[in-house]
């Protein structure tokens, strides 16, 4: 947990996140991530052996219960025309994106 992040790490993570950083941005992010992760390293002081991770507070006693799922019945979805109006490019029925496969 005390490992220092390198520029290569930042670039790798940016790629995973579909972000493209300028060289200047990479340097700033490198500095900020290391400062934050140094602070995060304080968590190592706590022994959490055998502690179950808590992903959702609803499971705690008195917290209002776990998720309530509705019946699996069909109901109308949003109007396709209205949804398509919000997209940068469509053919009315589908979203259009730049070419994925070169022929």
């Amino acid at each position, binding site marked *: 947990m005390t490992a220092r992040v390198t520029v290569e790490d930042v670039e790798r993570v940016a790629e995973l996140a579909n972000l493209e950083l300028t060289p200047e941005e990479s340097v700033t992010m490198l500095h900020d*991530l290391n400062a934050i992760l140094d602070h995060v390293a304080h968590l190592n002081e706590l022994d*959490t052996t055998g502690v179950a991770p808590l992903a959702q507070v609803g499971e705690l006693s008195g917290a209002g219960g776990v998720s309530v799922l509705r019946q699996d019945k069909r109901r109308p979805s949003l109007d396709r025309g209205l949804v398509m109006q919000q997209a940068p490019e469509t053919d009315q029925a589908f979203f259009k994106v730049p070419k994925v496969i070169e022929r």
Partner: protein
Amino acid sequence: MQSDATTTGSFVERPKTLADLHAEIASGQTKSADLAAEYFQRIEQKNPRLNVYLSLTKERALAQAARVDAAAAKGDPLGPLAGIPVGIKDVLVMKGAPATAGSKILKGYQPPYDATAVSRLEAAGAVLLGKLNCDEFAMGSSNENSAYGPVRNPVAPDRVPGGSSGGSAAAVAANMAVATLGTDTGGSIRQPASFCGVVGVLPTYGRVSRYGLIAFASSLDRIGPFAANVRDAATLLGAIAGHDPSDATSSPAPVPDYAAESDKPAEGLRIGVPAEYFGEGLDPEVRAAIESGIDSLRAAGCTIQPISLPTTKYAIPTYYLVATAEASANLARFDGVRYGYRSPSSATLSDMYRHSRDEGFGAEVKRRILLGTYALSAGYYDAYYLKAQQVRRLLAEEFLRAFAAVDAIVTPTSPIPPFKLGEKTGDPLAMYLADIYTVTASLAGICGVSVPCGATKAGLPVGMQVLASHLQESTAFRVARAVEAAQERR
């Protein structure tokens, strides 16, 4: 409180109470349409300086006001918020109105549906004025991360209003709405309420449906009201709370009459004061104001008990790991395909994703996506994300043990009073560390209220945070009301 504020800023103005406005509208003494027009006029006058609203929904507001006036004229029963002008944080969607989330990447997006909290407010009679400025994707503690410029604090316009719901807090402080909705993931309702001298409510996780909320961190995000007084905030919560089939995390627990509950005296309640919230880093003037607020609770018949919450010091790293990990997943949806901004210069799909996100997101959003992606990436998941979830359980269980002995816990909402614009933008970690008193309740899922509790010598507002256990909003309101009543008597 009011006099402190008015001496330092010309933008502060106190709205009439909901009860008074409701009576005026029901009797026909005030027309809802005139009230809406008055608010739009005030917005026009103050917004150029304060930058509180990003867009207005005049047509929708006036149509609703006309419905309310017609119902009042016929003597039909009116909803609890009939004719009340309300503003909405711009991370909640309203059909046909721009929804930006304070980001360039959603510029031009006009969602085709209403958030549940929005439609419930309108069903209760509220007149929705428009969309309120906030930090980009609700990430920030000063509102300086909005792609549309910062909001200024109506109390002191050279200072920040807090964040991320800065517009929602400032709108109430400047009477540019009678009440507003905000969202709170790590303090984004409570801290701006404190900075602007208004009441802000963090409901229990799951108390209010998030359907139609642009998600930041799904295990933490909550929607809650801002108002000028505790009772009005309680009335708003009553209107938006309750199960919604469109949000599986919304609780089926019955919704009490929060406004009536807030009227009950706080006498006999046991109040815990945790030592860890009064240590190093707490501004002495904030401390003095909170201690005086605690004295007034004692005078109101509460029992004050010192308590200890030792895991508090691990809350910031825990919060920033959980929140950013979830954000990195939630914000993957902004890719230039279905809505919002698409970079014009991309030959391939992969380039289109990258360019759109790079040009569309601001620096803080990128920083959090990177941190979250890192914490979830292969080789680091156990050390960061899993560890944070384990500490989250320790924090939550510590609160539950404390609530076995006390009914509510009081703390400062923020260790510092509102700071100057630009003062902290250069140091993201310092900005995160100032969230120390609010992130704990976020992680534990418990509820809370930030209530005005005096001011610094310079007239800057101080807020007291009143925390209560899961679904115990009524208790938090009673304690907050006692603090408020003591302030009113000064």
